[in-house]
Each structure stands twice: as structure tokens, then as C-alpha cells.
């Protein structure tokens, strides 16, 4: 509780509520407010504005699961599988054909097709060093060698 002598401005006769209201102010207030309310643009009551229905929660939950599942499947199953397949193709190509290719032919093919070689020691192990984009096909190699 605040003590009365605490504030220096509270001298004798100090009135901290020197306010009045017009006569009938409170009697007419409701009408004036309701008049303003009826002039408002039509509002949809808040409870009817609830856009999210229970079934939407279920559908969005299932959709979220599918999306997460798809990314998981793609990143942890499909992608490694594709990478393995690709590496297998490269390995096959190297095992069966690279031995018969001339160094210049292979170098030209890699340069023309802008194939990136990862690692800075080409020739150590092609299975580990070559990263091909797009995928080398046997036809592409023959086509390149015919030129």
C-alpha cells in the first residue's frame, strides 16, 4: 500500500481524480457503440473463420510423412544405389575397354565431354578417381573413338 506522505506533490487538498463525465454518458454509451459496430464491414465470426479442420491435420501429417519418407528413400537408398550403379559402369568400362584405349583418345574424350576428374592424381585408380557426368555409355565411347 502506498503511504499518503510519500509523494511531495500530495499537499493538502490534492485530488488525484479530478474527473467527471457528461450526464447520461453511461446510459447512452451502449447505443453509440452498437451504432459504430453496425457500421463495421461484415465480419466473419472468429469461430467460423477456423480454416483448419481436423481432417486437414491428418492429411497434412500424412503428406509430411510421405515427403520425409521420399527424401529419406531418395537420399539414403536410391541415390547411393545410383552412385553404385554409376561407379560399376565406370569400373566395367575401365576393366574392359580402357586398357585398349590410347591415352590421347581417353584424354580427348574426357576434355571434349567436360568430364570432371576428382582427386589430383589421375591414373592411380580410375575406379576411385573418375566422376563422370553425364554417364558414359559404351556407345558414347565408340562414337568418340570413331572420330
Amino acid at each position, binding site marked *: 500500500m502506498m503511504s499518503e506522505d510519500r509523494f511531495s506533490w500530495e499537499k493538502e487538498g490534492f485530488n488525484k481524480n*479530478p474527473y467527471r463525465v457528461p450526464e447520461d454518458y453511461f446510459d447512452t454509451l451502449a447505443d453509440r457503440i452498437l451504432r459504430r459496430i453496425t457500421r463495421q464491414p461484415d465480419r466473419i465470426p472468429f469461430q467460423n473463420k477456423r480454416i483448419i479442420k481436423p481432417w486437414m491435420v491428418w492429411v497434412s501429417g500424412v503428406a509430411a510423412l510421405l515427403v520425409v519418407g521420399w527424401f529419406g528413400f531418395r537420399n539414403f537408398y536410391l541415390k547411393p544405389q545410383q552412385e553404385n550403379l554409376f561407379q560399376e559402369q565406370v569400373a566395367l568400362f575401365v576393366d574392359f575397354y580402357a586398357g585398349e584405349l590410347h591415352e590421347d583418345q581417353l584424354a580427348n574424350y574426357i576434355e571434349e565431354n567436360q568430364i570432371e576428374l576428382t582427386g589430383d592424381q589421375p591414373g592411380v585408380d580410375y575406379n576411385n578417381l573418375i566422376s563422370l557426368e553425364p554417364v558414359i555409355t559404351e556407345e558414347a565411347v565408340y562414337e568418340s573413338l570413331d572420330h
Partner: protein
Amino acid sequence: MINNTPSDTELISMFRDPHQRERAFRLILAGYQEKLYWHIRRLVCIHEDADDVLQNTMIKIWNGLPGFRESSGLYTWMYRIASNEAITFLKSRQRERALLADDPEDLIKNRFKSDPYYDGDELFAKLQVLIARLPPKQQMVFRMKYFDDMTYEDMSVVLKTSVGAMKASFHHAVRKIQAAFVRSD
């Protein structure tokens, strides 16, 4: 004796029924309009401003009541809306004063003079001028505590600040006003 006045919960249910909405609203107003008016008036001082703020408050209550979740009491909820409306009003008034080249002291005194429903003396007007010089937050805290006897706990909910910060703010405000009074005597 049978009490025919509907409870807050009954009033809210009535309000949610479109056929009874207006009646419920009138009953809510009849029960709380004076308390809310005086709460607002003590914060904004001038009757015309208090009337504007109260009407805006009641329109917000009308619009918000269908979605009111009753996690607090009806009056607490309305009181919070009224406080926030008054705070918004005071902040806008302070910005306006900062933009005007006139002396803020004259502006405040002239506002009081133009209010036919104000009977304050020189001392009261001087106090209001000193309050208006405080930073907005301190001003709000001082008005709520000193004029409206709000508890620190209620103020902390309305102003979203800790009780400790409210107490510190109030004491800083009192110290500044007292010092200004001493200097001007």
C-alpha cells in the same frame, strides 16, 4: 433471494448465439463499462480521449468475444484490452507532441482547459506535465500504479514486463517527478 444477473460464462454463451448477441453485449456493458471507463480515463485524462479509447475497446471486445477462450476471467480479458488501447493511444499522443513545435507543457495544459469534465487544479496539471516528460514505459507504469492502483502483477501481464522491472520503473518515475517538483518550487 434469486439472482437474475447472468454469470460471465452465461453472458459469453449468450453472445455466441447471434439472436442474443446484442442483449448479451448490453449486459456486459452495463456490468463493466464504468469500471473500464475509469481505468481508461485515469490513464488518458481527457474525457473525449477516454470515450474514444473505450469505444474502440468495446468494438474489439465485440469482435474478439466469439474467439475468447476463457483462459482468464471476462473482466481480466476486457481490462487487458482496455489497457492496451490506452497505451497505444498514449504512445500516439506522445509521438504527435514530439512532432509539434509547440511547448509540450502548453499543449497539455490547453488540453485540460478544453475538457469541460475536468476539475483539476494547477498542481494536478503540473504533475501531468512532469509525467509526460518521462520515457513512455515509465509514464505508463506510473499512471497505472499511482492513478489506477494496479498491482505490479497485473501491470506485468499488461505491459509484458517482469514485476521487478515494473517496481524499478515506478521508483525511477517517482524519483524523477519528486526531483522536478523540488526544482520548480
